């Protein structure tokens, strides 16, 4: 297994513990083997020192982030290439968004979801029946040829 995600300047990280849980930020400076300085001007994360234990590394990098760069420099770099938006397109981010949406559903929404899922599954089952029937037609012909009495 090749290690791909490194703790480095410019690495986009997700905070997974604390009051800023769920927010994205970039690593600006590495202090020691346990703490880093992060900043997320566009995502609402104040420039702060945070233990690496509270972060999850993503596969994205902020291009143009230099060691110890000020918030203004970081904001400019984000405007040029927004890795945070790229992260929102990943499957992991979408799963989190889906979960958040589902938690917000009202009673009526839940009812509608239930009805629509039932309708979708009904459509799927009718299609499946059609496919099975077509397949079965082929099978019956083969069996008839083989002299099988069972239908």
């Amino acid at each position, binding site marked *: 297994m090749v290690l791909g995600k490194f703790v480095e300047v410019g690495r986009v990280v997700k905070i997974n513990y604390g009051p800023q849980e769920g927010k994205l930020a970039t690593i600006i400076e590495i202090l020691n083997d346990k703490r880093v300085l992060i900043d997320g001007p566009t995502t609402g994360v104040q420039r702060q020192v945070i233990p690496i234990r509270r972060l999850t590394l993503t596969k994205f990098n902020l291009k143009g982030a230099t060691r110890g760069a000020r918030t203004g420099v970081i904001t400019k770099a984000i405007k040029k290439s927004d890795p945070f938006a790229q992260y929102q397109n990943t499957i992991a981010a979408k799963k989190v968004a889906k979960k958040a949406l589902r*938690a*917000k*559903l*009202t*009673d*009526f929404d839940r*009812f*509608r979801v239930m*009805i629509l899922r039932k309708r979708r599954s009904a459509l799927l089952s009718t299609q499946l029946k059609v496919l099975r029937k077509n397949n079965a037609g082929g099978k019956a012909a083969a069996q008839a040829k083989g002299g099988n009495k069972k239908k």
Partner: protein
Amino acid sequence: MPAKKRTVRIGNWYKSDDEKVHFTRKRKAPRPAKLRKIVPGQVLILLSGRFQGKRVVFLKQLKSGLLLVTGPFKINGVPLKRVNSAYVIPTSTKVDVTGVNANQIDDDYFKRTQAQRRKNEQGFWAKRGELTAEQQTAEKTRLDGKRNTQKSVDAALITAIKKTQLLKQYLGARFTIGKTTRPHELVF
């Protein structure tokens, strides 16, 4: 100025130990329950009684503090009914009730009549025939009146409900809790 001395009057009567003090209401009339943020037209989930789990439409709060709700009757079988707001979950779904007129309905509408009380007195074996002829016709007209009030109140409601997709089916279904539902996490 010398402070007023508080004097405690000791009477001639001392309560014995085994005399129970019963709860006496200090107020003459009960204070109507303060309405939580429940708005006319809001869909409520009934939590107790014969219609538990049913989703009904809230019409107004009566003077006694109870909530006046209706199914509507055609949709889920709940008639015009009084309901205690403590046994209700308000949902965020609202129906447009601008055309609905429930002004003439108040607590007297739900009062038991003489004929009903008589029937209840006689209990299980009471038969309709035990009412006099005029009482029977009175009962019949009373029930017809109730049916008409129900219909007139529900008519405007049902047209409003039909405008939203699946709302009619939603009101017809009961609210249930399954194995995986977490009621404390549900948003209503």
